[in-house]
Protein backbone atom coordinates (compact mmCIF):
# COMPACT_ATOMS: atom_id res chain seq x y z
CA UNK A 1 0.00 0.00 0.00
CA UNK A 2 1.24 3.51 -0.79
CA UNK A 3 1.29 6.05 2.05
CA UNK A 4 2.55 9.61 2.16
CA UNK A 5 4.81 9.82 5.18
CA UNK A 6 6.27 13.22 6.05
CA UNK A 7 5.61 14.37 2.53
CA UNK A 8 7.26 11.38 0.84
CA UNK A 9 5.24 8.71 -1.03
CA UNK A 10 6.33 5.29 0.22
CA UNK A 11 5.32 1.72 -0.44
CA UNK A 12 4.57 0.05 2.89
CA UNK A 13 3.89 -3.63 3.49
CA UNK A 14 0.20 -4.62 3.45
CA UNK A 15 0.38 -5.84 7.06
CA UNK A 16 1.00 -2.31 8.46
CA UNK A 17 -2.73 -1.96 9.00
CA UNK A 18 -2.60 0.18 12.16
CA UNK A 19 -0.57 3.19 13.30
CA UNK A 20 1.05 0.98 15.91
CA UNK A 21 2.16 -1.58 13.31
CA UNK A 22 3.44 1.16 11.04
CA UNK A 23 5.55 2.68 13.85
CA UNK A 24 6.93 -0.78 14.60
CA UNK A 25 7.78 -1.28 10.96
CA UNK A 26 9.62 2.06 10.93
CA UNK A 27 11.37 1.01 14.16
CA UNK A 28 9.90 3.93 16.06
CA UNK A 29 8.00 1.84 18.58
CA UNK A 30 9.91 3.13 21.59
CA UNK A 31 10.53 6.69 20.40
CA UNK A 32 8.63 9.75 21.57
CA UNK A 33 6.91 10.40 18.28
CA UNK A 34 3.56 11.99 17.58
CA UNK A 35 1.53 10.85 14.60
CA UNK A 36 -1.00 12.80 12.61
CA UNK A 37 -3.15 10.93 10.12
CA UNK A 38 -4.71 13.17 7.49
CA UNK A 39 -4.26 16.17 9.76
CA UNK A 40 -5.64 14.60 12.93
CA UNK A 41 -3.45 13.74 15.90
CA UNK A 42 -3.68 10.07 16.88
CA UNK A 43 -3.21 9.72 20.62
CA UNK A 44 -0.72 7.15 21.83
CA UNK A 45 -3.39 5.01 23.47
CA UNK A 46 -5.35 4.93 20.20
CA UNK A 47 -2.46 3.87 17.98
CA UNK A 48 -3.21 0.15 18.28
CA UNK A 49 -6.76 0.48 16.99
CA UNK A 50 -6.40 3.34 14.53
CA UNK A 51 -6.19 1.98 10.97
CA UNK A 52 -3.83 2.97 8.18
CA UNK A 53 -5.28 2.84 4.67
CA UNK A 54 -4.01 3.19 1.13
CA UNK A 55 -3.46 6.87 0.29
CA UNK A 56 -3.34 8.09 3.90
CA UNK A 57 -1.08 11.02 4.62
CA UNK A 58 0.90 10.65 7.83
CA UNK A 59 3.04 13.11 9.66
CA UNK A 60 5.44 11.65 12.17
CA UNK A 61 7.08 14.32 14.30
CA UNK A 62 9.34 14.38 17.29
CA UNK A 63 11.18 16.82 19.50
CA UNK A 64 14.47 18.43 18.62
CA UNK A 65 16.71 20.97 20.29
CA UNK A 66 15.45 24.52 20.06
CA UNK A 67 15.21 27.77 21.94
Amino acid at each position, binding site marked *: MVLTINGIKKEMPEETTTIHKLLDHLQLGNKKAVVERNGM*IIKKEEQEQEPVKEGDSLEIVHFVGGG
Partner: protein
Amino acid sequence: MLKIGPYTFQSRLFLGTGKYEDAETQKEAVRESETEVLTFAVRRMNLFDESQPDPFESMNLEGFRLLPNTAGAKTAEEAVRIAKIASAADMCDMIKVEVIGCDKTLLPDPVETIRASEILLEEGFTVLPYTSDDVVLAKRLQDLGVHAIMPGASPIGTGLGIINPYNLSHIIEQAYVPVIVDAGIGSPKDAVQAMELGADGILLNTAVSGAEHPVKMAAAMKHAMEAGRLGFEAGRVEKKYYAQASSPMEGLSRL
Protein backbone atom coordinates in the same frame (compact mmCIF):
# COMPACT_ATOMS: atom_id res chain seq x y z
CA MET B 1 10.44 32.82 43.51
CA LEU B 2 9.00 32.99 40.01
CA LYS B 3 5.41 31.96 39.37
CA ILE B 4 4.02 31.30 35.89
CA GLY B 5 0.50 29.96 35.66
CA PRO B 6 0.33 26.96 38.02
CA TYR B 7 4.13 26.55 38.25
CA THR B 8 6.70 28.01 40.62
CA PHE B 9 10.44 28.17 39.98
CA GLN B 10 13.51 28.83 42.09
CA SER B 11 15.64 29.51 39.02
CA ARG B 12 14.81 32.42 36.75
CA LEU B 13 16.87 31.07 33.86
CA PHE B 14 15.12 29.16 31.07
CA LEU B 15 17.43 27.29 28.75
CA GLY B 16 17.04 26.37 25.09
CA THR B 17 18.35 23.05 23.83
CA GLY B 18 19.35 23.96 20.27
CA LYS B 19 22.72 23.87 18.56
CA TYR B 20 24.85 22.09 21.13
CA GLU B 21 27.86 20.31 19.69
CA ASP B 22 27.00 17.08 21.44
CA ALA B 23 24.50 15.67 23.89
CA GLU B 24 27.04 15.42 26.70
CA THR B 25 27.91 19.15 26.58
CA GLN B 26 24.23 19.98 26.57
CA LYS B 27 23.57 17.79 29.58
CA GLU B 28 26.46 19.38 31.50
CA ALA B 29 25.41 22.90 30.55
CA VAL B 30 21.85 22.25 31.67
CA ARG B 31 23.10 20.88 34.97
CA GLU B 32 25.47 23.79 35.53
CA SER B 33 22.81 26.40 34.72
CA GLU B 34 20.49 24.96 37.40
CA THR B 35 17.58 25.76 35.10
CA GLU B 36 14.19 24.21 35.76
CA VAL B 37 12.73 24.97 32.33
CA LEU B 38 13.87 23.53 29.02
CA THR B 39 12.68 24.64 25.61
CA PHE B 40 12.74 22.62 22.41
CA ALA B 41 11.12 22.45 18.98
CA VAL B 42 8.82 20.07 17.11
CA ARG B 43 9.99 18.74 13.75
CA ARG B 44 9.28 16.01 11.21
CA MET B 45 11.25 12.88 11.84
CA ASN B 46 13.89 12.24 9.25
CA LEU B 47 12.70 8.71 8.59
CA PHE B 48 14.30 7.72 5.36
CA ASP B 49 17.75 9.28 5.72
CA GLU B 50 20.20 8.50 8.46
CA SER B 51 18.45 9.17 11.73
CA GLN B 52 18.94 12.51 13.42
CA PRO B 53 20.46 12.51 16.87
CA ASP B 54 17.76 12.89 19.47
CA PRO B 55 18.91 15.47 22.04
CA PHE B 56 16.51 14.07 24.60
CA GLU B 57 17.42 10.42 24.24
CA SER B 58 20.16 10.54 26.84
CA MET B 59 18.55 13.20 29.00
CA ASN B 60 16.31 12.57 31.92
CA LEU B 61 13.59 15.18 31.61
CA GLU B 62 12.15 14.43 35.01
CA GLY B 63 12.27 17.44 37.28
CA PHE B 64 12.10 19.90 34.39
CA ARG B 65 9.13 21.88 33.18
CA LEU B 66 8.93 21.61 29.42
CA LEU B 67 8.38 24.67 27.28
CA PRO B 68 8.15 23.61 23.63
CA ASN B 69 8.16 26.42 21.12
CA THR B 70 6.07 26.75 17.99
CA ALA B 71 9.09 27.78 15.92
CA GLY B 72 8.54 27.21 12.25
CA ALA B 73 4.97 28.47 12.43
CA LYS B 74 4.05 31.44 10.28
CA THR B 75 0.35 31.46 11.09
CA ALA B 76 -1.70 31.08 14.24
CA GLU B 77 -3.11 27.79 12.94
CA GLU B 78 0.37 26.31 12.48
CA ALA B 79 1.35 27.39 15.98
CA VAL B 80 -1.77 25.82 17.47
CA ARG B 81 -1.08 22.58 15.60
CA ILE B 82 2.46 22.38 17.00
CA ALA B 83 1.21 23.09 20.52
CA LYS B 84 -1.31 20.26 20.23
CA ILE B 85 1.36 17.86 18.98
CA ALA B 86 3.58 18.66 21.96
CA SER B 87 0.64 18.27 24.27
CA ALA B 88 -0.29 14.89 22.76
CA ALA B 89 3.19 13.63 23.67
CA ASP B 90 2.93 14.93 27.24
CA MET B 91 5.82 17.24 26.43
CA CYS B 92 4.03 20.51 27.10
CA ASP B 93 3.76 22.09 30.55
CA MET B 94 3.80 25.52 28.94
CA ILE B 95 3.83 26.63 25.33
CA LYS B 96 6.09 29.31 23.85
CA VAL B 97 4.06 30.90 21.08
CA GLU B 98 6.54 31.80 18.37
CA VAL B 99 5.06 32.90 15.06
CA ILE B 100 7.72 34.42 12.84
CA GLY B 101 6.71 37.17 10.42
CA CYS B 102 10.06 38.11 8.88
CA ASP B 103 12.71 35.67 7.73
CA LYS B 104 15.56 38.14 7.92
CA THR B 105 15.02 39.43 11.44
CA LEU B 106 13.00 36.47 12.74
CA LEU B 107 10.79 39.02 14.41
CA PRO B 108 7.39 37.74 15.47
CA ASP B 109 4.19 38.43 13.56
CA PRO B 110 2.18 40.41 16.12
CA VAL B 111 -1.26 39.70 14.63
CA GLU B 112 -0.71 35.94 14.33
CA THR B 113 0.91 35.84 17.78
CA ILE B 114 -2.18 37.42 19.31
CA ARG B 115 -4.50 35.07 17.41
CA ALA B 116 -2.50 31.99 18.38
CA SER B 117 -2.33 33.05 22.02
CA GLU B 118 -6.06 33.62 22.09
CA ILE B 119 -6.83 30.15 20.70
CA LEU B 120 -4.34 28.39 22.97
CA LEU B 121 -5.65 30.16 26.06
CA GLU B 122 -9.13 28.98 25.17
CA GLU B 123 -7.77 25.43 24.85
CA GLY B 124 -6.36 25.65 28.37
CA PHE B 125 -2.65 25.92 27.62
CA THR B 126 -0.22 27.87 29.79
CA VAL B 127 0.73 30.44 27.19
CA LEU B 128 4.01 32.37 26.93
CA PRO B 129 4.15 34.39 23.72
CA TYR B 130 7.45 35.46 22.25
CA THR B 131 7.02 39.07 21.24
CA SER B 132 9.09 42.03 20.07
CA ASP B 133 9.89 44.82 22.51
CA ASP B 134 6.72 46.66 21.51
CA VAL B 135 5.19 48.12 24.67
CA VAL B 136 1.61 48.20 23.42
CA LEU B 137 1.74 44.68 22.00
CA ALA B 138 2.99 43.36 25.33
CA LYS B 139 0.07 45.12 27.01
CA ARG B 140 -2.44 43.66 24.55
CA LEU B 141 -1.04 40.18 25.11
CA GLN B 142 -1.26 40.34 28.87
CA ASP B 143 -4.77 41.76 28.63
CA LEU B 144 -5.66 38.60 26.68
CA GLY B 145 -4.66 36.58 29.72
CA VAL B 146 -1.31 35.09 28.73
CA HIS B 147 0.67 33.67 31.64
CA ALA B 148 3.92 35.52 30.89
CA ILE B 149 5.24 37.76 28.15
CA MET B 150 8.55 37.11 26.46
CA PRO B 151 9.90 40.21 24.76
CA GLY B 152 13.06 39.81 22.72
CA ALA B 153 16.18 41.68 23.76
CA SER B 154 17.27 41.69 20.10
CA PRO B 155 16.64 39.34 17.16
CA ILE B 156 17.04 35.60 17.74
CA GLY B 157 20.58 34.31 17.63
CA THR B 158 22.22 37.72 17.14
CA GLY B 159 23.70 38.05 20.62
CA LEU B 160 23.27 41.82 20.31
CA GLY B 161 21.96 42.14 23.85
CA ILE B 162 19.23 44.58 24.85
CA ILE B 163 18.97 47.02 21.97
CA ASN B 164 16.06 48.97 23.43
CA PRO B 165 16.32 49.07 27.22
CA TYR B 166 13.86 51.96 27.21
CA ASN B 167 11.06 49.86 25.70
CA LEU B 168 11.95 46.87 27.83
CA SER B 169 11.75 48.97 31.01
CA HIS B 170 8.30 50.16 30.03
CA ILE B 171 7.14 46.61 29.31
CA ILE B 172 8.41 45.50 32.71
CA GLU B 173 6.96 48.49 34.53
CA GLN B 174 3.44 47.97 33.24
CA ALA B 175 3.45 44.17 33.40
CA TYR B 176 1.25 42.31 35.86
CA VAL B 177 2.37 38.93 34.51
CA PRO B 178 6.01 37.78 34.57
CA VAL B 179 8.31 39.18 31.90
CA ILE B 180 10.83 36.68 30.55
CA VAL B 181 13.38 38.32 28.29
CA ASP B 182 13.80 35.99 25.34
CA ALA B 183 16.24 36.05 22.43
CA GLY B 184 19.28 38.14 21.67
CA ILE B 185 21.11 37.75 24.99
CA GLY B 186 24.79 37.47 24.09
CA SER B 187 26.81 37.60 27.28
CA PRO B 188 26.42 37.57 31.07
CA LYS B 189 26.47 41.37 30.97
CA ASP B 190 23.20 41.32 28.99
CA ALA B 191 21.63 38.95 31.49
CA VAL B 192 22.63 41.22 34.37
CA GLN B 193 21.19 44.22 32.54
CA ALA B 194 17.86 42.51 31.88
CA MET B 195 17.54 41.39 35.48
CA GLU B 196 18.55 44.82 36.81
CA LEU B 197 15.82 46.34 34.67
CA GLY B 198 13.42 44.16 36.65
CA ALA B 199 12.82 41.25 34.29
CA ASP B 200 11.40 38.19 36.06
CA GLY B 201 13.52 35.77 34.06
CA ILE B 202 15.50 35.13 30.90
CA LEU B 203 15.27 32.51 28.19
CA LEU B 204 18.48 31.98 26.29
CA ASN B 205 20.01 29.37 24.05
CA THR B 206 22.75 30.43 21.64
CA ALA B 207 24.55 32.50 24.28
CA VAL B 208 25.35 29.21 26.03
CA SER B 209 25.32 26.60 23.27
CA GLY B 210 27.38 28.81 20.94
CA ALA B 211 29.94 29.92 23.54
CA GLU B 212 33.48 28.66 23.30
CA HIS B 213 32.92 26.80 26.56
CA PRO B 214 29.17 26.22 26.89
CA VAL B 215 29.35 24.63 30.33
CA LYS B 216 31.34 27.55 31.75
CA MET B 217 28.98 30.01 30.11
CA ALA B 218 25.99 28.22 31.63
CA ALA B 219 27.55 28.81 35.06
CA ALA B 220 28.34 32.43 34.18
CA MET B 221 24.74 33.03 33.15
CA LYS B 222 23.44 31.52 36.36
CA HIS B 223 25.60 33.89 38.42
CA ALA B 224 24.77 36.85 36.18
CA MET B 225 21.06 36.25 36.71
CA GLU B 226 21.52 36.11 40.46
CA ALA B 227 23.68 39.25 40.51
CA GLY B 228 21.24 41.17 38.33
CA ARG B 229 18.23 40.11 40.34
CA LEU B 230 19.89 40.98 43.66
CA GLY B 231 20.95 44.33 42.21
CA PHE B 232 17.36 45.01 41.16
CA GLU B 233 16.03 44.11 44.59
CA ALA B 234 18.75 46.17 46.31
CA GLY B 235 17.89 49.27 44.27
CA ARG B 236 20.75 51.02 42.55
CA VAL B 237 21.97 54.56 43.29
CA GLU B 238 20.78 57.44 41.19
CA LYS B 239 23.01 58.61 38.38
CA LYS B 240 24.34 62.14 39.00
CA TYR B 241 25.91 64.65 36.68
CA TYR B 242 28.54 65.91 39.12
CA ALA B 243 30.95 64.00 41.30
CA GLN B 244 30.10 63.44 44.94
CA ALA B 245 32.88 62.38 47.25
CA SER B 246 32.46 59.09 49.04
CA SER B 247 34.80 60.15 51.84
CA PRO B 248 33.69 62.86 54.31
CA MET B 249 34.71 66.43 53.51
CA GLU B 250 34.80 67.42 57.22
CA GLY B 251 37.79 66.97 59.47
CA LEU B 252 40.36 67.12 56.69
CA SER B 253 43.86 67.13 58.11
CA ARG B 254 45.74 70.03 56.54
CA LEU B 255 49.38 69.52 55.82
